[in-house]
């Protein structure tokens, strides 16, 4: 065995092999030292072998940590995942001794809540499954494992409640996970992209989240969770648009507060997408839309601006997008400085220099802040994008263009399906559903 392994890992210095003897047996051990916790190796293999308290072949057969492996072709695979190979009397055993470097018990950082659970999923798959299992203590919870990526060999686990899950969705997800073809899989977003039929999608049709409470709630509603090794984010699907707009906290607070916050979020969604486009449409085509006093004050603030409204909008949008992008990419300590410099000083100066009107500054900041209200990051990115088509429509067609753009957006949302399920529709209580449309399929 040692010979064969050295041949396969030709130049790897960290492949360690031992040949050991005690009074009865000769055993061979092979593992990759950098992937393996060597204290485990000595504790479970080397020490018992030397001490001979029980016959070593009995130990291998009885201890559930050791499993037999017949297929010699899988040796490298297994070793690359942090297993130890043991050869004893021409039988090969494996033992999991993987040492995974990860962040320990991370706190939620992307979707934070004030009073909700603060622990997020872990970057180690086993820990994540552990957290979910302990929060969703049901025997119906099933998990299936897949391997994705021809080089990275990333472990991907799919978890679901097998009584509540929709079997057609389950089949579809299984098929998708099996058919992924890639070299390296490094992030959950990448996995989500591979699982979509349509790679050129705008809105996320699955939820990428790190919050355990969201996931367990999803499980109880029959959703499927896909997690991967090395990422503290899980995919939850199928999903509806309104679920992307809810924060977990909506469940923890009193009813009317949640209703207020939720409607606030939808207002914010409308504002962040339409404000710049409406600004252009109103200023350049229909200034008579507003009441006369308001129209005058807008015109007054625009008095020193020497060019049409859309150039103004483009300047400000360019600036704000740069700011957002910069504050994401910069290290945390410089980030706040950049925002202050850009937001406060540049905006003020641009207005005083007469490059943009002060109303435009307000429009831009309202738009930017409203965008951050959206709780799911991938949706907020999509929303950041859709204002640009609306701006183009506003430039060429004015107000009717913007209205048509919004309507087209609604059509687009309605035509989306999340793993075969409707993505954007009104949900009613279950007892109404039995006469839902579309239950008759053709053919």
């Amino acid at each position, binding site marked *: 065995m040692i010979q064969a392994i050295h041949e396969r890992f030709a130049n790897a210095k960290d492949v360690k092999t031992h040949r050991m003897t005690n009074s009865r047996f000769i055993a061979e051990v092979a593992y990759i030292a950098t992937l393996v916790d060597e204290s485990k190796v000595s504790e479970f293999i080397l020490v018992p072998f030397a001490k001979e308290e029980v016959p070593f072949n009995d130990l291998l057969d009885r201890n559930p940590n050791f499993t037999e492996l017949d297929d010699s072709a899988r040796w490298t695979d297994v070793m690359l995942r942090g297993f130890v190979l043991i050869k004893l009397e021409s039988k090969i055993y494996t033992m999991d001794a993987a040492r995974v470097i990860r962040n320990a018990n991370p706190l939620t950082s992307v979707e934070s809540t004030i009073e909700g659970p603060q622990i997020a999923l872990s970057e180690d798959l086993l820990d994540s499954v552990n957290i979910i299992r302990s929060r969703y203590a049901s025997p119906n919870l099933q998990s299936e494992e897949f391997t994705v990526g021809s080089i990275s060999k990333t472990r991907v686990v799919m978890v679901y409640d097998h009584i509540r899950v929709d079997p057609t969705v389950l089949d579809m997800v299984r098929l998708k996970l099996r058919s992924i073809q890639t070299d390296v899989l490094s992030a959950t977003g990448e996995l989500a992209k591979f699982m979509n039929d349509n790679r050129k999608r705008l809105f996320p049709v699955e939820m990428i989240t790190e919050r355990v409470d969201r996931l367990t709630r999803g499980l109880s509603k029959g959703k499927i969770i896909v997690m991967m090794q090395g990422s503290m984010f899980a995919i939850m699907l199928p999903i509806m648009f309104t679920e992307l707009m809810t924060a977990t906290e909506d469940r923890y607070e009193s009813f009317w507060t949640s209703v207020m916050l939720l409607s606030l979020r939808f207002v914010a969604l409308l504002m962040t997408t339409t404000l710049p486009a409406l600004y252009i449409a109103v200023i350049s085509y229909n200034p008579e839309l507003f009441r006369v006093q308001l129209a005058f004050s807008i015109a007054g603030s625009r008095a020193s601006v020497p060019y049409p409204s859309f150039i103004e909008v483009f300047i400000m949008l360019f600036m704000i997008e740069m700011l957002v992008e910069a504050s994401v990419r910069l290290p945390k300590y410089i980030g706040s400085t950049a925002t202050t410099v850009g937001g406060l000083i540049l905006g003020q100066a641009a207005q005083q220099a007469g490059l943009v009107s002060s109303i435009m500054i307000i429009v831009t900041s309202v738009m930017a802040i409203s965008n951050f209200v959206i709780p799911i990051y991938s949706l907020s990115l999509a929303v950041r994008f859709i204002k640009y088509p609306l701006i183009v429509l506003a430039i060429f067609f004015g107000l009717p263009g913007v209205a048509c753009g919004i309507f087209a957006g609604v059509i687009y949302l309605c035509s989306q399906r999340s793993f075969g399920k409707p993505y954007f529709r009104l949900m009613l209580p279950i007892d109404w559903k*039995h006469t839902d449309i579309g239950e008759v399929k053709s053919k």
Partner: protein
Amino acid sequence: MNRYFYYSFVMVAMLNLMLFVPAVLIEQRMTGAVSSMLVAIVLGTLTGYAATAALGRYPGMGIPEIFRLHMPEWFVKPVLALYAFMFFFASSFALIAFTLLMNRVLTPDLPAWNLLLVLGAVCIYGSTRSSMTLMFMLEVTILLITPVVLFILFKGIRSPDVAWNAIFTVAQYVRVPPTLKSVAAGTFIFTGYINLAIFNRLNPPNFRLKGRWLIPLFGSGILFTTFFLPIGFHGTVAVQRYMFVWTQTADSMTMNFGFIERVMFLFLMIYLGLTVLYTCVGWHQSIEFVRSISKKYQYEVDFNKTPKANWWISCIYFVICIGAMFIWDEGLNMLVAEIWLVTRMFVEQVSIVFLFLVCRKRPPAVKGAVSS
């Protein structure tokens, strides 16, 4: 599914509130419009009941499938073609009329076809989607639009500028016998049920339409509002001077404390959404009818990939609309509206009666055996 039926009913009723129905009715306000409206309510409700009763026996099947069950092929094909044309014409006519209105009122400095370009593009996109998508779309749009329309109507009725005397004066012409044109205009408010022609395919097998009493209630409410409110605002005689009487009526209201002072802008934006929705739904059904002419066509209520045929047919509709826009003006609009309303009423009434008779022959118990 009940609600989806009422969405389409509300959509058609609210759309006709603004388009040619009030113009036709108001033109004849002293020569029989009031009594015609009463006749229209009865007639509209009856046909509505008949159509829903007939189609309710065949959930999961559209008109093409039902006709194929009972009629010979040589009869079905031309009838389906006729229906396709009717749906196409109804929605395109609404689209063109609204584009014209919008262009005159909101963007007089742009050419009209410019506006039609963007409206039509959205209609192409919408009408090529699957039937299921259109239903979701219908729901979302109607739920967003209806409160605003009701708000505007409420504001109009409560407005101190309404001269109730003028309304009572016109209402006294109720003894003048009804005319064909006005009855035809009045029944158009009630035609929301024809959208079941295709969308009946989406109904689940255990589908029962409940709450049909809403049809006369809501329909007559809309009908009376569309006729009497402009008269109240503009007076018994002056009301005829306006080309787009409902736009002017909306413009007579003000929101004293709003960002937007003139209700008209709100009204126009809302009706833009409604018109585009109506056109999407109409074109979609027209496309389905055209494709159903071929006996081999297997319909799908939901698909991932839009069939090429949908795109082609929709684009042809669009080109026809653009072409029509160049010769279209208000005079032609009115003339076509009158002819269209009467033709539509006859085609529709005859089809409904026919459908009702056809469907009555078969006991509903055997329907499962045939459709499988």
